[in-house]
């Protein structure tokens, strides 16, 4: 079980996340929603151990993850928001490096990379350098890197960015399958429909504070509306139709 206990992170006294608490149990897929600057990325970085909280702790199976960060990270699969990869390495070489860094047996590494590259339709491009890959191809490399060591916890930060329709569908089904097989999944996204479809629970952040945390069905029922309308109501009290009309007016102004 992964637990965030009163997590707070401040940058030069400015709070990015305040008193964030939630629990993620095996089999649960927790979607994290929020507008830009709501603290999603900071939360993800604290959950992965890349960022130390100013206050509060992240606990895995009752232990503070910072007490033994290495063993926690060995059980973690992470897909970051931006696909920052080494462009001069080939897809195969990059994944081989990740597998070796994670201490996987060599034979296992080769078998898994080969199979996963086939399944993610990257096999023909495996010996091309990442610099020549499209955004979607890079994203698929990141996905393979995150799942190849069979981790217990998955943290996905905008994982569908740049993926084509087929790969996105495969990935959405994969997330649901991971949940069903008892893994812990933390899923950050801007795409409400995807969160609605693949997550069991949802956490909505606004200005670094949790404003809603419940099952997807319950959050929708709060206002008797879809998740999209509930999100807009809770997070941004903005008349989107009016804003769009104003944009057109400004555009057409002489």
């Amino acid at each position, binding site marked *: 079980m992964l637990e965030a206990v009163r997590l707070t992170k*401040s940058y030069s*006294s400015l709070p990015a996340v305040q008193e964030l608490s939630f629990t993620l149990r095996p089999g649960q897929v927790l979607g994290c929603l929020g507008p830009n600057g709501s603290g999603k990325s900071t939360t993800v970085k604290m959950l*992965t*151990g*890349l960022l130390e909280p*100013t206050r509060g702790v992240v606990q895995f199976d009752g232990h503070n993850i910072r007490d033994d*960060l*290495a063993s926690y*990270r060995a059980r*973690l699969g*992470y897909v*970051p928001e*931006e696909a*920052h*990869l*080494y*462009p*001069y*390495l*080939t897809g*195969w*070489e990059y994944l*081989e*490096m*990740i597998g*070796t*860094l*994670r*201490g996987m047996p*060599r034979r296992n590494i080769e078998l898994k990379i080969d199979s996963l590259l086939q399944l993610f339709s990257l096999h*023909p*491009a*495996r*010996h*091309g*350098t990442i*610099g*020549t*890959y*499209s955004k979607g*191809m890079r994203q698929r490399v990141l996905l393979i*890197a995150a799942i190849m060591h069979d981790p217990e916890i998955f943290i996905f930060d905008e994982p569908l960015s740049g993926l084509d329709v087929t790969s996105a569908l495969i990935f959405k089904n994969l997330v649901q399958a991971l949940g069903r097989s008892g893994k812990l999944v933390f899923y950050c996204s801007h795409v409400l429909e995807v969160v609605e479809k693949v997550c069991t629970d949802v956490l909505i952040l606004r200005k670094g504070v949790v404003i809603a945390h419940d099952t997807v069905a319950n959050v929708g029922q709060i206002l008797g509306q879809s998740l999209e309308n509930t999100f807009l109501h809770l997070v941004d009290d903005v008349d989107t139709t009016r804003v769009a009309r104003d944009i057109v007016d400004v555009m057409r102004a002489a």
Partner: protein
Amino acid sequence: MSLLTDPIRHHWNYYKERPFGRLVRLFVERIFRGGGDSDTEGLDLGIGLVLTLLAMPGGFVSILLFDKYGSLLQWLRGQKNVDTLLIAFPDEYFFIVLSMTVTGAIAVWRWDSIFPDRRDYMNLVHLPIATRTVFLANLVAVLFLVGLVAMDVNAASCVLFPMVVSASQSHFLFFVKFAAVHALGVVLSSVFVFFAVFCVLGLLMAVLPPQTFRRASAYVRGVVVVYLVALLCTSFMVPELLRRAKGPAPAWTFLMPSCWFVGLCQLLRGRANQALTEVAMLCLPGFFLVVAVALCMYAIGYRKYFVRIAEMTEGAATTHRWQKSQVGVLLDHLVLKSPMQKACFRFVGKTLQRSETHRLVMTGVAGLALVLASQALMNAYEGGRPAREAALSADALSIPFIITFLLIVGLRLVFEIPVDLQANWIFQLTVDADRQESEPLARKVILVSVLPWIAAITFGVYSRLEGGAVAVLHTVVVVVWTVLLTNIMLVRFRKIPFTCSMPVFKQHSIVILIAFCFGFLIYVGSTAEFEASALTEPLRMLELLPVAAMAWYIPHHLKGSTIDLEKRLIYEESAARTVELLRLSE
């Protein structure tokens, strides 16, 4: 005054904000800051810093020459009736090759950013701008860059060197004439070499298919860097050969543009002998030819690459066969102990092979090592000594020490140059920062890449020339010295190579630089001198043991006395702050 400057400023502001002026600014910034096709490699120095660094060598060398030209110092040394122009000749030649080397290095370094790239294409082609406007704007930016670099590299030497030379002269006119001729020589040589590099690479670009060019370009640039280093090293010998030349110019002078430009300077001063006059005649035709060819190559390259970027597939994957390296498997079993070392060793190797910046720096270092080693070899054979005798001279014995010193220092230096810092998250996520494996990793990388071949060649050559005993002794000294130097160079090293931001400039950096120079003299000169006298009496070699023991103990002791916190792996270099905030409010 404002009557004159106001219209100029008004026109400048007007043209600066016109589409063409804005494009030129965009391209100038791109050339300085790097292209956009590949991700940035983390060596993004500001324009001001780049210009300052470029101007520094000429300034430093000029200041160091005060000692040579001061009339009081000449008088104290008993030098009377000194022919200032005669003694300035080798220095002028040095300034010309220095200017050519620095400018040539800039052309090689910035080559990838000279042409508009895919990012420019994607941002510009949909705008109502004709491709010829983009072509002309980029050309203006390139010409502006050439002019700026030529002026900047030579600015200090154009003022300081003539001042130093004319220090003992009573006429101001001497200073003016000397400065004008010197400035003409160095600026022309700078512009020449920039366009010459442009010609070589542009020609390849025009002839080869894009994929082949991309692969060949790195090697050709490496060759150009080695040529530039060799050119700088000619300043020790060529001026004397040129001064002594009787009759027509030797054939080799026609192949060395640095001789043309120094010949031009001497011709304009009326001090050229027949050889210098002949080579000076090549100067202007050669200059204009190179500029013309470079511009043609630019036009062809532009047409071939920029205009057709859309036709080139972005995600074209190379499908070369992947071969499992047996050496890699062997290293995994024998040398590399942990998964971190196995993964990072390959990462370091591939970065050194494929990252443009790192490869260029290492090529420059290897070129310098090659040139210095060649000079040592030539000195060893001076006077037609037989091979067996030459091999035991200090010059010949110093060759493996020269090579190992420069390669070890070079590798240590490139480890500090980051590559795609944003991509280091994967190491932060997977490598245990407290396990202190970075130093053993870096040591293994250095020793594996330097030691086996240098030891094999040293042993092979000396066992053939001097027999087994001498070969073993010399090889053992080379191996032990290489290991000890590596240990010293890696004191307090706590980063995975290429994954940490560049170290900040510290006040003691100059001291470190001077220490490297002294280190080179001790490591190379003193060891080779000692070996030359001791190899024939093997027992004397034991005298090296206390030195080796001390060199082993110092880094070992320093490592032991470092607290655990300072051994932790880092991904960001931070400057030591005078005042530390406690951040109690957070």
